């Protein structure tokens, strides 16, 4: 598999996947990377160099925000990423788009 084309194909859905994961719970960067690995997806083994630019784009667009949260006493605050209301709305739109889009793509590929 040509890594350049594989990367291009995956690129478009990563924002949607990150929003989806954050819609379930707030997470910090390391957690997001581990979560995607735990999904047992060989296609979404995200590295820091890919994940953080996505998070920053979502943050700059107001779809997520970062918060420093202390989980346990005497522990240092961790930087969590939290989906915003706007992010929830955009995720809904992306899910609808994805359903239609993936159906159409599959139809063309099967021809």
């Amino acid at each position, binding site marked *: 598999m040509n890594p350049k084309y594989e990367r291009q194909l995956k690129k478009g859905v990563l924002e949607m996947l990150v929003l989806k994961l954050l819609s379930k719970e707030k997470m910090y*960067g390391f957690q997001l990377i581990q979560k995607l690995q735990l999904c047992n997806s060989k296609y979404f083994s995200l590295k*820091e*160099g890919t994940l*953080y630019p996505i998070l*920053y784009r979502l943050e700059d667009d107001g779809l997520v925000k970062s918060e420093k949260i202390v989980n346990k006493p005497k522990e240092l605050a961790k*930087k969590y990423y939290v989906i915003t209301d706007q992010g929830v709305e955009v995720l809904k739109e992306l899910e609808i788009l994805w359903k239609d889009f993936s159906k159409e793509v599959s139809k063309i590929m099967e021809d």
Partner: protein
Amino acid sequence: MNKEKYLHKVIKYLSCSKKDKKRIYEDLSADIDEALENGESWQEIEMRFGDPKDLADELMENLEVDTKGRHKKLWIGLICGVCIVVAIGFLAYKMFIPTTILLKDSTYFNYDEVHDKAMEVIEYASNDDYEAIANIGIDEFKQDSVKEQMKETMTMMKHGAFLKISSEQYVENSTLTSKYAAASITVMYEDNAITYTLAFDENLNLSAFYMK
């Protein structure tokens, strides 16, 4: 390499906004701390993260930083810098290194006026009249020390009666800030030949007087 050195190297290779550099540093640092807490060794983490430059390149590619545009800006900056240096060098050259043209080609000085003035100086010099020379010179010529110097030189160079002018050349020298007319005149005297080098400022005041 330890964590701080690694992160500083990554940041050094990044060409993005200060805001992005700050949050990248924070997030990578937090990830490394988390991985260490989870039992990974620094060596394992460093191997997983990869070469600092490669990580920086990957971050910039995904931040969609226009590296080609950045290189173009660098080249433009470099070319502008070189042009500025060349322009300054050219200006300095024009200011400090005089350009020389034949006086007859000068658009500032009148050849006949300069020639007449030079002949006046030669007449005074031939008569050892250093006072008269000082009177047509710039203020520095009127200083006693300068007049004394001229007197000494004229006394040393005993020449006898004036015979003829054997050669004369006239040029205009100009810098960005000033112009002067220069003359080199060789006079044959009874006892020897003296070459006079004269310079006149823009107001035709004598500004230099040499004898050899």
